[in-house]
């Protein structure tokens, strides 16, 4: 078990330079387009996993919910989609980078003037709101802004501008959370 403890106690290294990380991400996105014809994404997997859970707990409910019906209706398996392996891969990739750079730690990242508990509440609430919006926009920062943006999709640029516009407009009013 010493090797396991060693993974969690590696010396912490700094973050990659933003432009370097961006360039690597750009190459990954390009390779995704080149090999599969699909971009990157993740919020679709969240709603597919949700659909799978609802399908397992209350299959009759799926038949009455138009949005779930598209993913889990009849003999459709909502998890049989490219975005699910991407989602799982992203979790593993994040863990691998965290392990490699000594950042695996059970902690909370928060602004200096709020408690952990407030931060937990806000991140839960924020995640809920974000995913609601992501499903409405048919994609999040990855599936719309990043992938659609690189393919010059007009709607994706509109989504991207809307995300940044509302976050910037609201930032001043919630500054206590972060500053």
């Amino acid at each position, binding site marked *: 078990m010493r090797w396991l403890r060693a993974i969690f106690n590696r010396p912490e290294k700094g973050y990659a330079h933003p*432009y370097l990380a961006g360039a690597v991400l750009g190459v*990954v996105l390009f390779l995704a387009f080149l090999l599969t014809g699909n971009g990157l994404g993740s919020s679709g997997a969240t709603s597919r996993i949700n659909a799978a859970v609802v399908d397992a707990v209350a299959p009759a409910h799926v038949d009455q919910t138009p949005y779930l019906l598209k993913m889990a209706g009849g003999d459709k398996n909502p998890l049989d989609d490219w975005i699910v392996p991407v989602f799982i891969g992203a979790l593993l990739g994040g863990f691998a980078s965290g392990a490699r750079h000594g950042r695996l730690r059970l902690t909370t990242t928060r602004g200096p003037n709020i408690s952990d508990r407030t931060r937990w509440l806000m991140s839960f609430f924020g995640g809920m709101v974000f995913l609601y919006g992501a499903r409405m926009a048919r994609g999040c920062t990855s599936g719309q802004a990043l992938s659609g943006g690189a393919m010059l999709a007009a709607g994706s640029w509109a989504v991207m501008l*809307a995300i940044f516009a509302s976050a910037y407009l609201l930032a001043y009013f919630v500054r206590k959370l972060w500053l």
Partner: protein
Amino acid sequence: MTFPLEAFTTVSAANPWTYLVFGVIGFAFGYTLEMAGFGDSRKLAAQFYFKELTVLKVMFTAIAVAMTLTFGAAGLGLLDLANVWVNPTYLDSGVLGGLIMGVGFIIGGFCPTTSLASASTGRIDGMLFMLGGFVGAFLFGETERWFDAWYNNAGYYGRLTLDQLFGVPAPVVVLAIVLAALFMFWGAEQLERHIGRKDFSREPGLRKLGAAALAAAAVGVLVIGSPSLDERYERLTFKRSETVQQAEGNKLQTVTRVYSADEMLAKRLVFASPAEAFKARYQQAIKPVYLDVRSESDYNLYHLADSTNVPLNRLGKLVPDLLSEPAGNTVFITLSNDEAAAVEAWKLLSASGVQNVYILEGGINRWIATFGRQDPRLKPLPNAGADELGYALKAALGDRYESCSPSPIEYEHLEFEPRIVLQVKRDKSGGGCG
């Protein structure tokens, strides 16, 4: 070989490798985001107080690099953009959803994928964001029924891209976005210097070289341009399965053959007989669209019922609309008086990436010979020139001749050799974040 690889476009249990390919792509995605520091919500939130603009830098570098490489590869003919997923534009629901996402971003401190990088490295706030995300996705599924009709049509423009919107070639947009991104990076560094009080003396000078390389590559994309229609035509391939008799054992076997566009024409595999073109109207599985590429005057003389007149010289302008034709089972049938103009139209549409295009065999002349022989108002003209109407018509009745819409009952038992094979495009729900 043309990318994307057909074997990888959708995951399926029949080809388990696809799970691995998408898993590896996801792994690289998560690794890069964590590497950039996106597992820390403070780094993401700092973007919105102009203290540290890492989000903007990473995101726009990624977009600029991916875009330059993608359109460069398309220009060199390595990548067929018609087979790459482009998010369809739903303007209204996209903007409203984006505004909601912005609220979640500034309150929650993450976006969905960065919360994965955060949660997987042990950040409790990242895990709770993920958990909240499942609740949000659940709530959307439960409430969508109240605005289902709006959601499915909210400002729908189909596959609309910026180059179409502005009416300029895609490489021009690529270069403009790259230059705009570089200018934004310069502005971001000024903000960081003055508001974030960041010390820039230790920033690598290499980033200026990188910026120059990126701009040069974008200029390169512009120089390469988009592949010409001729080049794209040369690279077209069509798959047909054929039943052949094996030499030994007399067993029938189905083999898949790959043909070039010229072979398809030479073997007449894309010519639908009048009987087949007519019967297509009554077949549930396909939705035929008849494109009459003759001159307007010929069209006014005589044309098929429900056919659309698009003279050959205006056909190119119609391509974006045909590419976003909503139904996946649409079959386009080009037709002229004989075949010459219809063949040209077929070449143009196929090279432009329009799928399921066929030619009416023998054109209008063969159509009239098949369905209008008894009509005394249609007199054969034996001396008609190539691709000219071979009948003398007294009046320009358009589609009011009986043979323009033959009776499906009278011609129910027409025999023909089927040529139309529906190539179903990439599943619409299979791409994007769907």
